[in-house]
């Protein structure tokens, strides 16, 4: 039954990340309905077979377990500023190639889809967009340096 539990967890995660409104799964001993609409029909029926019910102690502990991850969120972003973070580990590049003009400079106005840098993983370059409109306040990451997952790359002031 540990498999069932993992599967449900995976489904919920998939659902959360999707743009679906509703997910229904039905197997021999499980019926699962997840919906973003609280009035969805059948929503109260979570599980048919009592054996598949997840033990409540484990549920409580899982909630507990997510705590440190939340705590470790990089903090210290100055009030009012928004961080552009590294979506994965890689090398931070400010310009398309050495010597070329950087994508952005401090003081520059950007839109959500303005490209701010490249992140390279094994010679594969991923463009990173600002994600928000505003003014570039600081280039936090250093050109050609390795950035880790979640590191702040650029600070943007969305109010200006």
């Amino acid at each position: 039954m540990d498999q069932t539990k993992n599967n449900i967890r995976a489904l919920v995660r998939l659902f959360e990340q999707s743009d679906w409104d509703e997910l229904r799964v039905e197997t021999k001993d499980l019926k699962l309905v997840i919906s973003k609409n609280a009035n969805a029909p059948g929503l109260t029926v979570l599980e048919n077979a009592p054996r598949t019910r997840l033990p409540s102690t484990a549920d409580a502990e899982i909630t507990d377990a997510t705590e440190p991850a939340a705590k470790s969120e990089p903090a210290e972003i100055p009030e009012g500023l928004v961080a552009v973070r590294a979506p994965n580990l890689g090398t931070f590049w400010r310009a398309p190639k050495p010597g070329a003009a950087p994508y952005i400079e401090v003081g520059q106005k950007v839109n959500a889809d303005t490209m701010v840098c490249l992140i390279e993983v094994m010679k594969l370059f991923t463009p990173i967009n600002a994600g928000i409109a505003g003014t570039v306040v600081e280039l936090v990451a250093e050109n050609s340096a390795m950035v880790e997952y979640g590191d702040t790359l650029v600070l943007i002031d969305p109010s200006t």
Partner: protein
Amino acid sequence: MNLSRVFVANRGEIAVRVLRACRKLELSSVIGVSEADQESTGAMMADRAIVIGPAPSKDSYLKPDLIVSAAVNSGCDALHPGYGFLSERGELAEMCAENGIAFVGPTADTIRKVGDKISARELARAAGVPLVPGSGEVSTVEQAKSAASDVGYPIVLKATAGGGGRGMAVARADEDIARTFDAASLEAEEAFGDGTLYVERFVENARHVEVQILGDGKGNVLHFGDRDCSAQRRYQKVVEEAPATAVPDDIRTNMREAAVRLAKSINYRNAGTVEFLYDQNHNAFYFIEVNARIQVEHPVTEEITGVDLVVAQLKIAAGEPLGLTQDMIALSGHAIECRINAEMPLRDFAPSPGRITAWLPPEGDGVRVDSHCEQGYTVPPYYDSMIGKLIVHGATRTEAISRMRGALADFRIDGIHTNTHLQAFLVGHRDFKDNKINTKWLETTLLPAYSSVMGD
């Protein structure tokens, strides 16, 4: 040493184990962790910890490009993959090689050859390693009966097109074949689009026995004796011991020689395990597979040989001589390992992640705990439920069992549910003490007995 900085591409107890070996060899270390493991023991122990991705393994520990990128960027010249995750992916070994990083494992080519079931069986056959006796294709009931009498009942009818040979029907006598042949063929046709069948001996009373080897990639292969891992649940090992004393000595000798022959035939580099089934009814052994990595249960072999297998792995990766010959490897006493899992055995082994409020591992002569846990540590819900391994060593098997029972009783873990009570019940069971179990015993005998004792 030829290496200076090792990247640890794993988590949990094996990350800690590898980091200890690095310290022993005075190598600096970098660990690649997921966001959830930033404050783990491994992250604290390593000289540097790099967050490679978010908590889910598929976005972090299973990403070879992120891992090799982190290793290159942090100036590592070797990479240890541990077990699980990417340890047996040719891709990781290949990317390391391309980037000038010594992969602490076999070559990508070896990983692929032994990782594919069919090609592994071919390698075994070529090296004269016994496989489960079987027939060629059988297309009629009469052919199947004749093949079955050659192989010896009970047999299992399998689909030639089935991946790994999915079993279709077990037959204990000629009548069973007459009765099941057509249905089995039809089922194979439906499942694989090909109704061709073959006959294989059905091994119903087996022990899982494996041989630990070390190869230097230059043609030298040593064995470190055998292990018995017959206590399994859903093909997951639960208790492992060394040596495999339930198996007759002549069989064990043949098994070890077969393992070395197989490894030599592919010029094997790294620590590895050749796994066998020991058929207790026919007093014969058959090849299962090669595990081209360090295994969870390696400590029982370390305990009886006194050899640090992870240090040996690093030396081999550095191209250093092992400084060992077969006659220097002496087996002494008996060792047992119990895997400690965060789970609820009485609730169908549901995982039990959460905060460990008390962690008091047993101590004393012949007691070893390999773990990344400590008081206050939160077992994350994203990964395997194994939180540690309890290993004991004694002069005899009886002494080791008694030591294990004491150590399990002393092991205090609060805040989460674990399987220590079940493990104590297991090693205290008469069948285990008498060494009369097989690979089905835990599921068919022990768990029902445990449930009834626990009033479930």
